[in-house]
């Protein structure tokens, strides 16, 4: 509740479609994207990349390239090694694979950067690149997840190709009887294609060494603060030695969350060469050598009772991490957020990320979106199988507000979510029965219409549980001219944060929107935040701005009251004017008050600071949930397999809507990407590990003719944050795919089920269902290449080990593989007979435990932790001489492996 609403800003700005502040420069060609940055003496970089997916580098011949005009330097990894680099994940943890900026003796995927040519022009650099001779002793590459399971390790120093693993095979023992005994069991399998994020502006980086330990970097990124912190940490430079500027960025979508090999290499080259340098990724590189996303193989089984109520579910998830993921990932978030919106008593999973000889996995809008796709498509499949309407099936299982607080099957506290209420709002605004009648009539005419639904929740505005996910700082001031300046740690790659934040300020401060200037996009402005990552800026920066503007308004009121010898309660601010109740003659402009606050300190209240400034850093609740229900109607041509989207209605609850134009823009952009994922986009690889989509003629981006007019319903349930916002950046890309797949499946229902969903649903794959044969060749391709995924059995052979002769007492270096990356720690054990006590020491601090048990060489103990949420860690360790291994059950995070050795 905004208590100031009565005394400030009678003009409403929050909730209105203010024209965007960003548009004036972007519409007139005056934006500043990285390639628009020109420095005197700036050189241009082009990369030599591997044309081979896997092998040992026999030789790199640079002689001919060095002779080319304009070439200033050519670097290989041997040269860059002069600058030590530790590549990091988004969580600021070390990357586990042996990733270097350029290939170090081996190549592990096509597109692997091998050398960088630095020349006076981009064209000269490319000329020289074409003359670099690289000889690679080629090995058979692993391309698919199936290849990874059986092939020789992609990284020779590792035991296998499991990049990351979570979950608990043992849990299947508890789930299986529930599946076996249920009235209905429905299963599905989805093979999600590989996506190239494809922002319209590819990656870009320019660096200029300024002084001994200073570097100015212009980068296409999603947060200059995060990029600066990453670069400083990865390069071991002092924080503050690197300033990152990103005025305008042509789309990010998660790809640009962190600097990656090429961007860091550009900075290192600038350090080595002591010259400003620039690298602009071309489209071929963007498609084939920027990090990819998705490519998952997921199976889900769901047990339901006679009444269609969910009983239990089991999921087996595999994701292709490629050779050099931006952080090894088993995608635990898929499992965390699969069921909290539904009442499901029991859930178990095993989830793995696999290394292959393909381009690495990176972030992409809604990285865990598979949870909604696999759940919502399975749910409608179940509805058809059981003979219940899909909306009714949801109603029987959704967690409505009246069911909250609720605890999910993985122990996640569920409150403040409204997926059911969004669904009811949606149903109240579409004529569902009417569509079903129309559908029945159309069937008689041989036309196949379909309707699909999806409901979901999404954690947004995450703060305080993961290193990069923090609060936001706002610095606000009223200039002596009466104009307002805001300095923010936000970043817009199209998000319009300057617009929305100015709207909040205008309303809370009582000034005109036009009188506010917002500065952002520079690590020298504001304080640390991860910018556009995890649907958070509207929530957190919005809250920070809201409060800072209130604080500044209070300051103006105090000064005005003092000047008029009135009480603060009588002061109101409206339209840039400050009024005293009952004394209209005492009204002053904010400018007049600002002039006094800056220039006539003697007229200020005793002890008041001069000027008109406020700063606030907002730490919101750890998570703010957004909910939505979507509906899509399609017509599928039984003749051609072509899908035409007729209508698409979104009912989302993102709390307080600052600017409906911006919010709807976020939803629409995500939905367009969803349509691309379901119908068009695909980055296939051939058996030799060659990416097969090298231009936008091969990689089909949705065009205006592929995307319908979207209809929006806003539910607007305020959240617990300051201002009541909820994040909306990723939702469309999460809830969109199942909505569209379900509509297509509904249209295809008379022909048959989509037994196994292989994306994208090309016309040929739609015809597979219509004609009940392998029109697309997908089946032949898959059956020839893969066997059905099986839940791997563990081998809990009970072997009673002898008590370890060397004992377990003392210190052990251990590594726990958590969803946020590997956590290193020192474990100390003291065994007193069969009772074990000790502590775990990590950089974050030390935590003691007691009451553990020693049995043979097995130690079990428990430890309660508060972060990222309250869970009990259950360690089960097996000691063998000077090594230790085992696992740690981490509540809802499943289980993680532990390895270590005696100190």
């Amino acid at each position, binding site marked *: 509740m905004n208590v100031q609403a009565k005394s400030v800003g009678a003009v409403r700005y929050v909730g209105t479609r203010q024209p*965007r502040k960003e*548009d004036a420069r972007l519409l007139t*060609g005056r934006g500043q994207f990285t*390639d628009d940055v020109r420095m005197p003496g700036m050189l241009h970089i082009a990369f030599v990349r591997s044309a081979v997916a896997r092998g040992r580098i026999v030789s790199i011949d640079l002689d001919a390239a060095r002779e080319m005009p304009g070439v200033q330097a050519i670097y290989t990894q041997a040269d860059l090694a002069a600058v030590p680099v530790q590549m990091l994940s988004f969580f600021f943890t070390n990357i586990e694979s042996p990733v270097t900026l350029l290939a170090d003796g081996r190549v592990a995927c096509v597109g692997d950067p091998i050398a960088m040519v630095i020349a006076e022009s981009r064209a000269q650099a490319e000329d020289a690149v074409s003359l670099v001779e690289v000889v690679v002793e080629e090995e058979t590459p692993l391309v698919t997840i199936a290849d990874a399971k059986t092939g020789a390790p992609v990284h020779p120093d590792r035991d296998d190709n499991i990049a990351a693993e979570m979950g608990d095979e043992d849990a299947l023992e508890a789930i299986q009887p529930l599946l076996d005994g249920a009235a209905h069991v429905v299963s599905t399998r989805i093979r999600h294609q590989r996506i190239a994020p494809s922002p319209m502006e590819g990656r870009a980086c320019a660096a200029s060494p300024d002084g001994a330990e200073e570097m100015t970097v212009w980068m296409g990124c999603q947060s200059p603060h995060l990029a600066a912190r990453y670069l400083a940490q990865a390069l071991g430079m002092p924080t503050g030695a690197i300033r990152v500027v990103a005025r305008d960025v042509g*789309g990010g979508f998660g790809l640009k969350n962190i600097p990656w090999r090429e961007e860091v290499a550009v900075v290192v080259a600038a350090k080595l060469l002591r010259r400003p340098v620039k690298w602009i990724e071309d*489209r071929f590189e963007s498609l084939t050598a920027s990090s990819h996303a998705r490519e998952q193989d997921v199976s889900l089984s769901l047990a339901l009772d006679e009444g269609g109520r969910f009983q239990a579910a089991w999921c087996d998830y595999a994701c292709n991490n490629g050779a050099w993921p931006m952080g090894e990932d088993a995608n635990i978030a898929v499992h965390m957020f699969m069921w909290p919106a539904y009442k499901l008593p029991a859930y178990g999973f095993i989830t793995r990320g696999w290394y292959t000889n393909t381009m690495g996995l990176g972030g992409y809008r809604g990285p865990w979106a598979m949870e909604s796709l696999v759940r919502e498509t399975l749910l409608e499949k179940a509805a058809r199988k059981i003979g219940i309407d899909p909306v009714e099936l949801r109603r029987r299982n959704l967690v409505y507000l009246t069911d909250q607080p609720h605890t999910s099957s993985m122990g996640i506290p569920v409150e403040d979510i409204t997926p059911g209420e969004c669904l009811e709002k949606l149903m109240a605004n579409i004529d569902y029965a009417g569509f079903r009648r129309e559908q029945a009539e159309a069937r008689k005419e041989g036309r196949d219409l379909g309707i699909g639904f999806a409901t979901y929740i999404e954690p947004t505005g995450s703060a305080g549980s993961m290193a990069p996910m923090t609060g936001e700082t706002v610095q606000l001031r009223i200039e002596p001219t009466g104009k307002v300046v805001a300095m923010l740690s936000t970043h817009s790659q199209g998000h319009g944060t300057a617009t929305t934040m100015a709207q909040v300020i205008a309303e809370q401060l009582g000034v005109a929107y036009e009188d506010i200037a917002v500065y952002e996009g520079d690590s020298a402005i504001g304080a640390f935040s991860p910018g556009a990552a995890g649907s958070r800026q509207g929530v957190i920066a919005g809250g920070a701005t809201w409060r800072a503007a209130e604080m500044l308004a209070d300051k103006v009121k105090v000064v005005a009251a003092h000047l008029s010898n009135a009480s603060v309660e009588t002061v109101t601010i409206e339209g840039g004017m400050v009024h005293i109740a009952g004394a209209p003659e005492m009204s002053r402009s904010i400018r007049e008050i600002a002039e006094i606050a800056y220039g006539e300190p003697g007229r200020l209240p005793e002890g008041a600071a001069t000027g008109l400034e406020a700063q606030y850093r907002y730490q919101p609740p750890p998570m703010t949930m957004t909910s939505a229900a979507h509906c899509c109607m399609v017509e599928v041509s039984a003749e051609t397999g072509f899908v035409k989207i007729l209508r698409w209605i979104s009912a989302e609850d993102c709390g307080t809507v600052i600017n409906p134009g911006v919010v709807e823009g976020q939803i629409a*952009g995500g939905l367009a990407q969803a349509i691309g994922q379901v119908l068009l986009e695909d980055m296939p690889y051939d058996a030799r590990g060659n990416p097969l989509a090298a231009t936008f003629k091969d990689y089909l981006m949705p065009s205006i003719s592929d995307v319908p007019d979207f209809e929006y319903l806003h539910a607007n349930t305020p959240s617990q944050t300051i201002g009541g916002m909820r994040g909306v950046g990723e939702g469309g890309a999460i809830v969109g795919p199942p909505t569209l797949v379900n509509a297509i499946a509904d249209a295809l229902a008379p022909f048959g089920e989509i037994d196994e969903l292989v994306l994208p649903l090309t016309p040929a794959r739609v015809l597979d269902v219509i004609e009940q044969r392998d029109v697309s060749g997908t089946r032949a391709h898959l059956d020839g290449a893969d066997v059905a995924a099986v839940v791997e059995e563990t081998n809990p052979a009970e072997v009673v080990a002898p008590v370890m002769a060397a004992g377990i007492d003392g210190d052990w270096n251990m590594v726990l593989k958590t969803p946020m990356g590997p956590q290193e720690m020192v474990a100390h054990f003291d065994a007193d007979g069969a009772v074990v006590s000790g502590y775990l020491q990590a950089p974050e601090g030390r935590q003691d435990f007691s009451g553990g048990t020693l049995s043979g060489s097995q130690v079990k103990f428990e430890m309660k932790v508060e972060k990222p949420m309250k869970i009990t860690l259950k360690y089960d360790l097996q000691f063998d001489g000077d090594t230790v291994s085992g696992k740690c059950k981490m509540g809802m995070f499943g289980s993680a492996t532990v390895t270590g050795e005696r100190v």
Partner: protein
Amino acid sequence: MSEHAIELTVNGHCHATRVEARTSLGEFLRDGLGYTGTHLACEHGVCGACTVMIDGRAMRSCLMLAVQADGAEVTTVEGLAEADGTLHPVQQALKDNFGLQCGFCTPGVAITMACVTRDNAGVEAPRMEDALTTAMSGHICRCTGYQGIRRAIRQLAGAST
């Protein structure tokens, strides 16, 4: 590389210079003349971001060599607005309707719209809408889902009659 003397007009300004034969018009406008409002996004002629007006026609500056523009009159996005800063109607329509987000594809979108609205001036709204929508099928926007672009098209079509 062979160099050639060319002379062309960009946004009303005359430029006489030498250019390498292989330089694309898009690169030349950006790097040679500093008109960085033109964006190169795919360089394969698919996405439309680099579209500029050449002798009144919308052309992809990535698929044309600078030497081919010798003697041409070129308008880039920097040249669309009036001298006093008043936005061109297509720029205003995009602004009014949230027709852009990151703005990288926008220069090409605006140029194509400007050409289509001029070529179809005075036609009935449905025909204008159809002409603009058809032309937009040659532009890729990753951010907006084309919603604001469609609304801008309707605004322009409505204003044309």
